[in-house]
């Protein structure tokens, strides 16, 4: 069974015209899914719709076979979803460690193990644990943001352009960490502008164009699909 199942989704901001038109998406547990496509195609919108931040006109979103379109954000976190927005994704006035604690807000058990775990994933955070997150660099912020999301022990991690604004070096580090997180059993669904690199680590790729599914296939298949490569991945390879 798929962990996340989006069927015929039509959604938009408020009561304005919908941005997503009949979008389908399905991802099995333990996989990495990548949503790619040109700007304005509704990639981030799809992620936000899954996380209940949008007005859903029709269609359904199922997590573990259960419809989640009527749940509030905190209920979604309890369901095992976690979301890292693209911008403003850390609490700037809180310390790194407090940011992580906030990620574990819904948990009632001890969280110190999980904090140590996050520090293992992202070693640079350990020495900055007492520092305010607002004082960190872009790459470190991204680590805090991902760490915060992992603190709720999610089964499905949604990442909105985790490498935006990062240097190529940092980008590779972040991708490496995403793979590590995935190998620990977390299903990852991410929007990525660096489509080629992202598809290389993806099990499943979804290419959206103007709010509709354009191509859906495995990462490798998409990379090797001439038409996709020509239209969306650029001639350079």
């Amino acid at each position: 069974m798929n962990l996340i199942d989006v069927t015929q989704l039509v959604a938009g901001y408020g009561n304005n015209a919908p941005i997503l038109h009949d979008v389908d998406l399905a991802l099995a547990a333990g996989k990495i899914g990548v949503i790619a496509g040109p700007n304005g195609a509704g990639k981030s919108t799809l992620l936000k719709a899954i996380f209940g931040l949008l007005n859903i006109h029709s269609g359904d979103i199922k997590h573990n076979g259960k419809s989640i379109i009527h749940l509030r954000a905190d209920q979604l976190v309890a369901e095992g979803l976690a979301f890292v927005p693209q911008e403003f994704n850390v609490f700037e006035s809180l310390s790194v460690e407090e940011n992580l604690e906030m990620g574990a807000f819904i948990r009632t058990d001890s969280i110190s193990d999980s904090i140590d775990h996050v520090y293992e994933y992202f070693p640079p955070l350990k020495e900055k644990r007492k520092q305010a997150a607002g004082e960190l660099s872009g790459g470190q912020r991204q680590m805090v943001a991902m760490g915060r999301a992992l603190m709720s022990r999610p089964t499905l991690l949604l990442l909105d352009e985790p490498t935006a604004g990062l240097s190529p070096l940092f980008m590779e580090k972040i991708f490496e960490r995403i793979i590590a997180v995935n190998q620990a059993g977390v299903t990852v669904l991410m929007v990525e502008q660096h489509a080629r690199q992202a598809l290389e680590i993806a099990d499943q790729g979804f290419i959206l164009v103007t709010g509709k599914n354009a191509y859906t296939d495995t990462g490798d298949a998409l990379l090797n699909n001439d038409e996709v490569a020509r239209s969306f991945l650029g001639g350079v390879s």
Partner: protein
Amino acid sequence: MNEFIFFFNKVIVSGAAIGSVYAMGAIGVTLIFGILRFAHFAHGDMMTLGAFFAFGLTVMFPQAGQLFGLPTGFIMLPFAMVLTALVAVLLDRTFYEPLRRNKINPVGMVMASIGVTLMLQGLIRLFGGIEARHFFFAERKDIFRLALPFESASRKIVITEPQILLFVFTLLAVLAIHFILNRTKFGKAMRAVSDNVDLARVSGINIQKVTVITWMIAGSLAAAAGVLLSLDVSLKPDLSFNLLLPIFAAAIVGGVGHPYGAIVGGYVVGFAETLSIFNWAVFLRPFRESLPDWYELPSKLALVPTEYKITVPFFILVVILIWRPTGIFKGKVI
């Protein structure tokens, strides 16, 4: 020497007392500003309400104080705090929450809080009347007069029991707030919501619970400030309106959304008030002989006549808005 004792009594003790009251009020205002993002105009009336709860309990059980050797009004303080906290949560549920759900703009929320303040005012005066009342109707208000071990000091330092209780309570309240905000899960969540409400939501923080806790803290601190102030002076139903401006000034001076700033702001406003209405002629009198002949020493030489005390917080507010709109500590909202 006597002049300094006079100064100490009039400026330091009174300023610290009123400053503590402002600080406790301003913490509530600043928390609500930070988390719910509107200026809560009904805060003054929550103070009055708290004081009336305590007064009502004092009238019902006038002997309670003797058991502990403290003023009865002070014994009733925790109960008044709980009651006011409940009222605050109730007010939020009935009046503010539906508006938030309708996504009304912050100014609409401010106006709703003015509606609430009028309703509270109406009810308080309907049941409580409009005359001033005193907590110490059945017992004696202890006033301590401390003599200083100096020969030249014939005056005594005067401090009342309610003032001492006020200082002690404020200190405890500040420590408690510090502890809550930095050590408890919900306190940290409050800071997180104040920092970035959207991220707090997607992190799974239950905004509703945080809101409730914010109102409980704000409500109980407001009640405490109201009770302790009316213990020291008297309980007047129009207490609230005169407190509102200094409290907002304190919150803005300290930097909106910044609890420690609110404390500092409270004392800044409190001392500014007592300093500006202090009669500085007292300090000149000893030098009467050495002053030039043409200078006639006025009997009163205050920066601001007492009846214009209300201008002081306003003046501070205006200066801050011009000079540094984010307040002393860098506040959140401009």
